[in-house]
């Protein structure tokens, strides 16, 4: 295996762990959007596997499918019964994805354009897909958090999870924006290194956000006292309190 492949395998392991953890949560709650997230993480792991084996075509196709699942997750989690740009973003993702595949084929066959030109165009389309996904994820999390950020009814760790979603969404946008500057296969430049760091931060952010260990929840909740005393009230007391 080439050197970077070891790093991709580490990324892959984190994706599988997060996916497996969320699968357990889904089995408990049966909430459909959690299942979408499970599929998103497993598909992402598969994408990384294609990268390990240097199959760029399957990597591209799988990336597009993963993005689509990610968009469906955002729509089902934040935008049910609300005005949503989902259809527009889905169409854009598919068109850009198809173009990236076409230009990758052109690059691999070395037809029509210079290889550098077709690879650059391929990177632009792939990068745009990442940027669209990251931007919508950021907007969805930021606008939701804004509506209850001052509410004491929501525990600080939950707000922390939204902030982590915002954080890793920025990393995804950064990855997408810099993909344009990545060099043709086999070489390394500054953009590739920044993308690598952004990906490490993204994966760390996603893992922490969705697994959120208890010690971190406790850390976020330090000094927070819940006002929930509902278990102490009987049905009669509740109904009486409402009269």
């Amino acid at each position: 295996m080439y050197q970077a492949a070891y790093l991709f395998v580490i990324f892959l392991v984190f994706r599988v762990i997060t996916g497996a953890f969320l699968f357990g949560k889904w089995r408990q709650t049966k909430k459909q959007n959690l299942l979408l997230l499970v599929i998103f993480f497993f598909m992402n792991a598969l994408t990384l596997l294609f990268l390990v084996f240097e199959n760029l075509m399957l990597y591209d196709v799988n990336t597009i499918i993963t993005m689509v699942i990610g968009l469906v997750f955002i729509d089902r989690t934040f935008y049910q019964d609300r005005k949503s740009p989902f259809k527009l973003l889905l169409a854009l993702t598919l068109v850009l994805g198809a173009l990236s595949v076409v230009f990758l084929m052109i690059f691999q066959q070395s037809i029509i354009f210079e290889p550098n030109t077709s690879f650059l165009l391929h990177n632009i389309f792939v990068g745009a897909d990442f940027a669209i996904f990251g931007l919508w994820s950021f907007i969805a999390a930021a606008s939701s958090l804004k509506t209850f950020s001052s509410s004491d009814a929501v525990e600080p760790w939950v707000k922390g999870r939204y902030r982590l979603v915002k954080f890793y969404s920025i990393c995804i946008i950064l990855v997408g924006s810099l993909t344009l500057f990545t060099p043709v296969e086999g070489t390394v430049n500054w953009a590739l290194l920044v993308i690598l760091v952004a990906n490490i931060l993204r994966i760390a952010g996603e893992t922490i956000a969705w697994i959120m260990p208890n010690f971190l929840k406790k850390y976020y909740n330090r000094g927070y006292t819940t006002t929930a005393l509902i278990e102490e009230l009987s049905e009669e007391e509740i109904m009486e309190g409402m009269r």
Partner: protein
Amino acid sequence: MSNVTNFFGEYLASLTEKETRSCKGMIRLAVLDKFPGKTPEQINFNELKEVFNTSLKERLDNVSTPNTEQISQNIASYLVKNQSLLTMA
């Protein structure tokens, strides 16, 4: 871990001007009416919306709360706006 109950309970308290803990209890009872054995944290968006539109409204009617139709609509709209809490919390 009762973010959903607390969040919508507090909102119901602001709408009805009743005690917050009674409103939180009211939401729990309304969920139990529709989905026995479940808590607001265990149901999905469509189920909670249905609760707000039916059993919560009925319970508010039973205690002679004024404007129950409006309250039911407002809390359902509030849910639509904050639906992500059902997954994120």
